């Protein structure tokens, strides 16, 4: 983690409205723990904040309805990522079949900054986020997904390999090239 960033000792988390429903405390806990990871993966994979919101909503609604299908063979995080990846890939297939492009624009990007940030910090985050998105967009879908999954410290290489249907050795090999390609494209965004 970046040691240069001063983060508040206690995060100000607004009350999750899911807790207002009867019998959903545990589900609300699950949402609080994993929704950020799901949203971030969808956001950077699809490059569309509105679609990322839709995916996050749909993934957790599916999880709520299909909990009986979770057998504990993998971690909850891995299970959530698998649903998210499938959902994102289906969306992308749908887009390409219709020859549509991303609808992300500056106005939408403004909504991705944390609400408690100062204006300067928000501007900085927006610019950095845009540069990261441009660099990721320049990569193949496979490289983009590998970089995003490996950046999650909760996932092992074996779990990333399982999520991307390849061996851990293949992940390591491709990751090396993906990191290098990202660095080159990121440099071009300056």
């Amino acid at each position, binding site marked *: *983690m*970046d040691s*240069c*960033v001063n*983060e508040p000792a206690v995060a100000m988390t*607004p009350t999750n*409205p*899911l807790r*207002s*429903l009867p*019998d*959903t405390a*545990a*589900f609300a806990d699950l*949402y609080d723990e994993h*929704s*950020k*990871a799901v*949203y*971030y993966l969808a*956001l950077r994979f699809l490059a569309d*904040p509105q679609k990322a*919101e839709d995916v*996050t*909503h749909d993934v*957790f*609604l599916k999880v*709520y*309805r299909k*909990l*009986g299908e*979770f057998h504990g063979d993998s971690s909850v995080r891995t299970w959530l990522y698998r649903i998210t990846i499938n959902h994102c890939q289906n969306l992308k297939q749908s887009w390409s079949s219709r020859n549509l492009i991303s609808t992300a624009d500056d106005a939408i990007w403004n*909504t*991705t*900054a*944390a*609400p408690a940030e100062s204006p*300067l910090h928000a*501007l*900085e*985050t927006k*610019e*950095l*986020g845009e*540069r*990261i998105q441009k660099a990721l967009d320049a990569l193949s879908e496979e490289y983009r997904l590998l*970089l*995003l999954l490996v*950046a*999650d*410290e909760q996932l092992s290489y074996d779990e990333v390999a399982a999520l991307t249907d390849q061996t851990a050795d293949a992940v390591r090999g491709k990751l*090396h090239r*993906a*990191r*290098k390609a*990202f*660095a080159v494209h*990121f*440099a071009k965004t*300056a």
Partner: protein
Amino acid sequence: MKHESKQRSQEQEQLSQFTAPQATREFAATDELLRHDAAQTDVPPAVAERLTQSIAKLPKPSRSWWERLWKR
């Protein structure tokens, strides 16, 4: 091995050269940059609100959330 570390240092150099103009911030590697980006990206509160509304509209299950998960 030398080849690998050379490529790694080139990557680090390319990442560290480019920082936001408002503040000096350096990232040693792609993973670190993406983790920082992820930490700065919050889920819009509207998602939890929409999800709450969607769940409230679902037919009530015969068993609770935890019963469905653990008492199958």
